[in-house]
């Protein structure tokens, strides 16, 4: 039964909005009637804690030599459709970005809330999420190597990599703050186990620019583009809800 509902959830996400919208309105109407009729249930909204990890970062750490990362996620249900949510992560990534090769190391914290927009059928607990996070990272940038821009190379091959000297080395004690707008969903796989995917649009608020370099990559924020302050990221989480629930 659970599996069937899971599939219904998936299919309703994937099928075109217009073809099924009629049925959904009908379902939603009937659901609303149920909810309105059972006010006493609504008042007993349980507070429950759910925690887990991002699978994508675990898999990527295994698959790539240039990446080590882990992200723990947790949320706390405070209303029927409202969750306090947080992510804590640690990342070390080595990147060749055009003419520079660098290693970014650091930890990040994200705190905010998730709003469940999905009208569940009786007994279901799936989520279509809109969320917001305030995030910060503290990190370091290590410049491994780079090439020098030379418009008219004369003495040396312009691809000559500079690995030591004036600019290379580590920049410590860097910070960044940003906001994330989240869309995503969580599917209840088993009774207390959820699989979730979230896409995040990041808007940088501020960052300490490293001396004679830039935060091309920020842990948790991902790539910082120079022209605008937007970034994007995602996670793919497996979470476990602690069966114990507080009654309000």
């Amino acid at each position, binding site marked *: 039964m659970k599996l069937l509902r899971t599939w219904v959830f998936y299919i309703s996400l994937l099928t075109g*909005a*217009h073809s099924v*919208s009629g049925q*959904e*309105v009908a379902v*939603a109407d009937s659901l609303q009637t149920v909810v309105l009729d059972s006010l006493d249930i609504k008042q007993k909204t349980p507070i429950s804690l759910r925690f887990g990890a991002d699978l994508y970062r675990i898999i990527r750490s295994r698959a790539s030599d240039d990446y080590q990362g882990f992200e723990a996620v947790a949320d706390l249900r405070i209303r029927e459709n409202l969750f306090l949510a947080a992510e804590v992560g640690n990342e070390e990534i080595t990147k060749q*970005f*055009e*003419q*520079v090769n660098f290693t970014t190391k650091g930890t990040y914290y994200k705190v905010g809330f998730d709003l469940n*927009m999905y*009208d569940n059928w009786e007994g279901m607990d799936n989520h*279509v999420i*809109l969320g917001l996070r305030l995030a910060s990272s503290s990190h370091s940038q290590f410049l491994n190597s*780079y*090439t*020098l*821009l*030379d*418009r*008219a190379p*004369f*003495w*040396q091959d312009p691809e*000559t990599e*500079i690995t030591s*000297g*004036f*600019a290379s080395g580590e920049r410590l004690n860097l910070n960044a703050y940003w906001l994330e*707008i989240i*869309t995503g969903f969580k599917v209840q796989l088993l009774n207390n186990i959820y699989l979730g995917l979230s*896409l995040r*649009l990041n808007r940088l608020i501020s960052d300490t620019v490293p001396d*004679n*370099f*830039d935060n*091309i990559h920020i842990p948790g924020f991902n*790539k910082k*583009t*120079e*022209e605008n302050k*937007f*970034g*994007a990221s995602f996670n793919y989480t497996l979470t476990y809800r602690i069966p114990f629930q507080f009654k309000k």
Partner: protein
Amino acid sequence: MNTLKNKLLFAFVCFGIFAGCEKDDICLSTVVGTPDLVILLLDKDTGTRQSPSGFSIRPIGTEKELVRSTGDSLALPLQITEAITQFEFILNGGSENENIDTLQINYQRQDQFINGACGFRANFVLDQTPVFILNSGDNWIKGAVILKDTISDETAAHLGILH
């Protein structure tokens, strides 16, 4: 539900746009690269710009020739992997009284970050004694004066060569 789906679709499209378009991956051709050392040939008495007859410059350590090796204002490329670059300053080239002075330019390199796509450009700071004249004897070059000790662009001359 319908509007929610539209919102979600909108969000996914936005995500695609922001994740996909990365225009600063390209280093624009207007960005200035590593500058050359710009020298002026100055008269040792009057300090006025003056190009002597039959004058040219030949870099030492390469078969290549400078794009422009004559005139009173010249851009000399500096070696990035060394803190010195040597040039032959030739007077009356090709004639009987040809006079070649070998000059060594002394400097420190300081690399300056431009952006991720362009990487770095090299800047140079001339040493306190920017020029050594390596050959002894009848030197037609009498000395050098620093006009601007930091070489970060080619808009102004950095070194005056007195003759």
